C-alpha cells in the first residue's frame, strides 16, 4: 500500500500528551444527604483512575487506524476524546474535520418514532442540516433497504434493521472522520459486505477511520496502521501485521504462563482432585505440541500430545491408562483409554512413559481440562486419578474461517446438489 509519509501531510487528528483521569469517590455516593454527612465527617476518599496516560498520536487523511488492546485498555476512552465527548484531563486534542461516530442502536433513536422521523433525528444529532437530509432521504433509506418499513415505529424493528438505518444515516455523506466501534458485525452478510465496501471507498477518497473491534482478523484486513493500548498506555504503534502479531504473541505468552503457573499451584494442592491407591503413580503429565514441546494454547486443527510419566511401585499386569477432556462448563467431551483402543500393556515395573496423540484437535475456542487416570482392567481398582488437573486453551487467531457454534468441528463439507 502506498501511503503518503507523515512529512507530506498534515494530520487530521492530533493528540498531544492526552491524559484522561476519572476521579471517582471510592464508593459511589449517589445521594446528597449521604454526601453532606460524609463531607462533614471528612470521609470522602477519592480514587483516581487513569483511563489514558500521556498519549501522543497523529492520524492522517486516508488512514484506517485500528485500536487494539484488552478490555479496559482505554480504547473507548480514546474514541470519546476524539469524538469530543470527553474533555481530556491534561493534554491537547485537535481535530481538523467533523467527526461522525457510528451510534449503536438505541443511543440516537427514539423507539416510539417512525423510521422516517428517526432518520431526521439521527441526522440532527450528527449535525446535518435538515434541508440536506430531505434531499438525501431516499438514498439513505434505500441503502438501509428499509423502504417498506420506514413509516413503522422503530420499536418494531429488529436489531439488524436499526443498525442498518443508523449506519446508513451516518455514512450517507462522506465523513471526514468516521469512528467505528464494534458495530460492523451487524446486519446480514449482504449488508455487512455493502458497509465494508462503503468504508473502504471512504478511505480511498481520503476519509480517516478509527476502528475498534475485537476481531483481530478485521483489523489485519482493513487497517493501514494499528495502535495497541494497555492500561491507558500506548504500547506499540505501527503496521497492522506487525502490531497484531506482537499483540497475539504477548497474549499467548501470558496465557501460557498463567496456565503453567496454575499447573504448578494445582499440583501442590491436588489432594481433593486426586485419588487412588497409587500402586502405579502418575508422576508427571505434559501437554505438548507436535514437536514434543510443552504448550497450553492451541488452535483448532493443531496436533496435541499428552505425555504421561508413571511409576509402578510394584509390578502391575492389568493397568489401563485413560484420559478425559471436559470443557469449562463441565461437559465431558471425550474419554479414550488404552483398553478400548486395544493397546494391551505389558507388566509395568518402575518408571515409564505413555503418549496419547491427537493428530488434529476438533475442539473450538475455549478452556479445556484434562483428567488422567490409571485403573485396573475391571475398573474396580483405581491406581491413580488426576481429575481435571491439566488445562489447555483453544484460541483461534483467524476465527473467520473456523466454525463458531457448539464445541467441535466435524470437518464436514457442504455440497449443493442442484
Amino acid at each position, binding site marked *: 500500500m502506498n501511503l503518503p509519509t507523515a512529512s507530506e501531510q498534515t494530520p487530521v487528528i492530533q493528540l498531544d500528551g492526552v491524559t484522561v483521569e476519572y476521579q471517582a469517590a471510592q464508593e459511589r455516593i449517589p445521594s446528597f444527604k449521604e454526601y453532606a454527612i460524609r463531607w462533614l465527617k471528612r470521609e470522602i476518599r477519592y480514587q483516581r483512575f487513569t483511563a489514558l496516560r500521556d498519549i501522543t498520536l497523529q492520524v492522517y487523511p486516508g488512514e484506517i487506524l485500528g485500536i487494539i488492546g484488552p478490555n479496559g485498555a482505554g480504547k473507548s476512552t480514546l474514541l*470519546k476524546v476524539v469524538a469530543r465527548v*470527553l474533555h481530556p484531563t491534561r493534554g491537547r*486534542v485537535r481535530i*481538523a474535520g467533523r467527526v461522525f461516530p457510528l*451510534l449503536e442502536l438505541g443511543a440516537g433513536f427514539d423507539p416510539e*418514532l417512525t423510521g422516517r*422521523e428517526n432518520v431526521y433525528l439521527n441526522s440532527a444529532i450528527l449535525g446535518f442540516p435538515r434541508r440536506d437530509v430531505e434531499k438525501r432521504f431516499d438514498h439513505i433509506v434505500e441503502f438501509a433497504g428499509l423502504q417498506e418499513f420506514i413509516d413503522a415505529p422503530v420499536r418494531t424493528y429488529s436489531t439488524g434493521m436499526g443498525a442498518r438505518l443508523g449506519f446508513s444515516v451516518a455514512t450517507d455523506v462522506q465523513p471526514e472522520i468516521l469512528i467505528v466501534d464494534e458495530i460492523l458485525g451487524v446486519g446480514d452478510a449482504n449488508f455487512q459486505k455493502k458497509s465494508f465496501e462503503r468504508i473502504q471507498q471512504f478511505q480511498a477518497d481520503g476519509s480517516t477511520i478509527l476502528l475498534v473491534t475485537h476481531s483481530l482478523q478485521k483489523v489485519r484486513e482493513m487497517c493501514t496502521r494499528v495502535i495497541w493500548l494497555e492500561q491507558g498506555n500506548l504500547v506499540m504503534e505501527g503496521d497492522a501485521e506487525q502490531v497484531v502479531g506482537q499483540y497475539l504473541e504477548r497474549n499467548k505468552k501470558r496465557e501460557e504462563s498463567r496456565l503453567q503457573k496454575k499447573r504448578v499451584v494445582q499440583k501442590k494442592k491436588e489432594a481433593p482432585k486426586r485419588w487412588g491407591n497409587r500402586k502405579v503413580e502418575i508422576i508427571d503429565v505434559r501437554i505438548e505440541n507436535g514437536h514434543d514441546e510443552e504448550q497450553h494454547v492451541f488452535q483448532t486443527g493443531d496436533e496435541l500430545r499428552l505425555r504421561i510419566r508413571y511409576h509402578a511401585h510394584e509390578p502391575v499386569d492389568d493397568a489401563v491408562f485413560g484420559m478425559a477432556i471436559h470443557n469449562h462448563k463441565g461437559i465431558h467431551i471425550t474419554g479414550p483409554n488404552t483398553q478400548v483402543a486395544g493397546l494391551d500393556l505389558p507388566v509395568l515395573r518402575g518408571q515409564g512413559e505413555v503418549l496419547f496423540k491427537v493428530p488434529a484437535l476438533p475442539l473450538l475456542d475455549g478452556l479445556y481440562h484434562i483428567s488422567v487416570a490409571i485403573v485396573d482392567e475391571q475398573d474396580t481398582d483405581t491406581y491413580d486419578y488426576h481429575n481435571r488437573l491439566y488445562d489447555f486453551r483453544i484460541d483461534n487467531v483467524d476465527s473467520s474461517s473456523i466454525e463458531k457454534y457448539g464445541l467441535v468441528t466435524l470437518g464436514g463439507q457442504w455440497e449443493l446438489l442442484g
Partner: protein
Amino acid sequence: MHNRMATVYYDSDSIRSPEIQELRELWRYRDLLQLLVSNSIKTRYKRSALGVLWTLLNPLLTTIVLTVALSQLFRFRIENYPVYLLSGLIAWNFFSQTVTQVMSTLIWGSRLMKRIYVPRTVFPISVVGNGLVNLTLALIPLLVIMLFVHQPLRWTLLLLPLAMLVLSMFTTGVSLLLATVAVYFVDLVEMVKILLMAWFYLTPIIYPLEAVPPRFAWFIKLNPMSYFIEVFRGLIYDGCIPSASHLAPALVLSIIILLAGWVIFTRKANEFAYRI
C-alpha cells in the same frame, strides 16, 4: 513536528469562554433542538387515545375540582375564581414541570452524551421549548373558561408572550442550576419535587396575595414566583399592565438567574460525561 494542521474544527485548549461557544453550537444544532421539541410533543399525543383533547381537558377538570373545593374552604370571595386560579396555575405548572423535567432529561440524555458530541444545553432548552408549547396550549381551555364565565377578554392578553418570555428566562436559569447539581447527586430530583410542592403553597396561586397575613407579606415578597404569578394574573384576569414594582424585580432576577445558570452549566458541562 506536526503542529500545523489544516482547518482545526475542534481544539480542546481553545475553549476559553464556554458560555459563548455553547451559544454558537446551540445555533448550529437548532434543527436538533426543534426536532427534540416536536418529537416529544408528537410521542406524547400519539400514546394517549384522547390525544390533544386530553391535555385540554386536564386543566379544565383540575380547575373545576379546585374551584369547588377551595371556594368552600376559603372565606374570601373572588369573582370568577376559576379564571383567577388558572391564570396563575398555568405559569406555575410551566415552571415546576420544566424544572423537574430538565433534571431527568439531562440524565436521560446522558446515553447520547456519552457517545457523541451535541451541545449539552440542547436537552434543557428543548424541555423549556416543550413547556412553552404546553403553556400555549393551556391558554385554550383558559379562554374557553373565560368565555363561559363571561370574563371580559382584554387587550392585555396580547402581552402574554412577553410575560412568557421573561418567565422562561427565569425557568431556564433555575433549571440549568439545578440540573448541574443533579448530575452529581441523583436524589436532588426527588428533593426538588418535594420543595416545589411546598413552594406552590407558599406562592399566591390558589389564594390572593391579600389573604396573606401582613406579618408574612415580606416572605411572599422574597418569593420570585409570586411576581410572575402577579404579572400573568394582571394580564389575564385584571386586564392591567403590571406595575414597574412587579415587573422590574421579575425581569432583573430572570436575567441574573439565567446568566448564572448558563455560565455555571456550560462551565461544568465538560465534566458531565465523566459523571453520568
